[in-house]
């Protein structure tokens, strides 16, 4: 077989081998590049844990902020975070889901729809601090809500609106039209079809969007600083449940507050080193919360993809 040893063929083979070496080199470079991200994530978490682990005691969760670093805690900020998230969830989530349903199921191709869609994509790219300026001008001074839980919750509600809308649309879009046609065929109206079929089947997908949006809202700091939220809050907002009729109170909506990322920021900007450990501990709490929510969203999406085959 002369052509195996043909010098031309060998030269070409050598050339291919040489070029294929680049495949391996690049595969390694690619893996290393991804490792930069993964290693940073791990380094960041370990750094926070090392600095903050000494402060992560029960006392840290049950104390108010204090001038003395070793007595300071995050009681007012985690309560504040929960209350603000409640307002965000009640305002941004229904609005976002409703908008997503409209755009996916009702909207006809016309300029109003185009306008809405352009605005949704645009809002997703607006820096979060701009939402803070909007809230400062609109909620704090025009509507006179002040620097309250309500203002912060509504601000973050608007902030997560594009995330929820996009998540809802993607979830609804993945429902095949045969489902809708089946419902129409037995006489269901459009809304009945959506309520009884489209929404139940896309719940998992919508929840993914909602959870990612909420996780983003929990860690969001800039807009809350911009509305002028105080950083030293050594009291809790009034309780939503009271002992007198009607047993519910909404005074907490108007109460001054602080949230976890604000508390962390105020500790980072202190000159005393002891407060940095507090900041790290608060950082661990925030990061565990957001990562848990993100992980939950990833798991839901993964299982949802696996389970449902149309």
């Amino acid at each position, binding site marked *: 077989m002369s052509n195996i040893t043909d010098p031309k063929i060998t030269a070409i083979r050598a050339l*291919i081998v040489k*070029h*294929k070496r*680049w*495949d391996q*080199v*690049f595969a390694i*470079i*690619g893996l290393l*590049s*991804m490792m*930069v*991200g*993964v290693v940073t*994530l791990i*380094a*960041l978490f370990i*750094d926070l844990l090392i600095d903050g682990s000494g402060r992560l005691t029960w006392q840290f969760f049950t104390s108010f902020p204090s001038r003395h670093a070793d007595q300071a805690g995050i009681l007012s900020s985690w309560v504040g975070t929960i209350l603000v998230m409640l307002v965000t969830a009640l305002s941004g989530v229904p609005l*976002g889901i*409703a*908008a997503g*349903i*409209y755009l996916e199921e009702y909207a006809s191709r016309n300029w109003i729809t185009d*306008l*809405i869609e352009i*605005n*949704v*994509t*645009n809002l997703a*790219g607006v*820096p*979060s*601090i*701009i939402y803070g*300026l*909007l809230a400062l*001008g*609109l909620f704090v*001074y025009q509507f006179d809500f002040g620097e309250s839980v309500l203002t912060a919750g509504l601000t973050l509600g*608007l902030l997560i*609106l*594009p995330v929820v*809308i996009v998540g809802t649309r993607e979830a609804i879009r993945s429902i095949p039209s045969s489902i809708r046609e089946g419902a129409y065929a037995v006489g269901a*109206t459009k*809304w009945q079809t959506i309520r009884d079929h489209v929404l139940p089947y896309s719940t998992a997908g919508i929840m993914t969007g909602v959870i990612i949006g909420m996780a983003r809202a929990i*860690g*969001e*700091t*800039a807009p809350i600083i*911009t509305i*002028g939220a105080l950083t030293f809050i050594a009291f809790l907002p009034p309780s939503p449940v009271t002992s007198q009729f009607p047993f519910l109170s909404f005074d907490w909506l108007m109460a001054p507050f602080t949230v976890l990322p604000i508390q*962390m*920021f105020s500790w*980072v900007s202190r000159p005393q080193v002891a407060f940095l450990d507090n900041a790290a501990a608060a*950082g661990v709490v*925030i*990061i565990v919360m957001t*990562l848990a929510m993100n*992980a939950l969203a*990833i798991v839901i999406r993964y299982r949802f993809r696996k389970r449902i085959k149309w």
Partner: protein
Amino acid sequence: MNQKPSRFAYQARRHLPERIIQGILFLAAFSAVAVTIAIMVILVYESLGFFTHVSIFDFLTDTQWTPLFSDKHFGVLPLVTGTLVVATVALSIAIPLGTIIAIYLSEFAPHRVRETVKPFLELLEGVPTVVYGYFALLFVTPLLQTFIPDLPGFNMLGAGIVMGIMIIPYVSSVSEDAMRAVPMHIREGSYAMGATRFQTATRVVTPAATSGIVAAYILGISRAIGETMVVAVAAGSQPNLTLNPMEGAATITAYIVQVSLGDLPHGSLEYQSIFAVGLVLLLMTLLFNVLGHLLRKRFREVY
């Protein structure tokens, strides 16, 4: 005669709630437009108040930004350069790494690797920015100081590097989408000519996906410009007209945070100044966002 209820009456009863629901859903969707309008109105309104005291010419050409001093200067340039320097550092990290990761994930990675590593990258995006600020100030900057001994504690380099790592997933996921949109037969054509994977990736797939990849970069720029907490914590709060990332300087966002932390009286010039710089920031990000989306749309329509 026993009158049957008319079909039409029945339909009207059925259709009225439908219409109401559709109306409510439309209003919800329209809120996106309302929010945009509200943002523009608030920013422009407060900025107009600002520009009755400060001329636009001074605002754009003065080289000092000292609104909190007794000798007040309102030149936005130092804030803009600070913003752009940090963004440049961030992008010089995020663009090469993001592109390599995108090429790797789209053309090289086995399915298992992609499914394991991608969630990690997504988590990187989920970490709150204030935590990144802490990391930049207390981990990356001290680390850099071992190589560059006279690096100040607050500097744009550390903040930019951390911000760059933060936006890697953003750049890589949009670029990867663009590369995956390149149809298989184009790759197969390249392989049939005897090209290797690396050659196909760099000379066929990447050029075909260029507009999408550039869109990813531009969206990354817009993200870096608007990022707040990393720079507010780690880059310093002194407006500083410099192009040297080793120095500390305030960005637009850091200035807004700094003013907001103080007790700012409603209607004062300082209060209005944050809206004026906010408007500059919004216009800058808007420019990049529009450009990015146009390019992104283009790559979607090609195939």
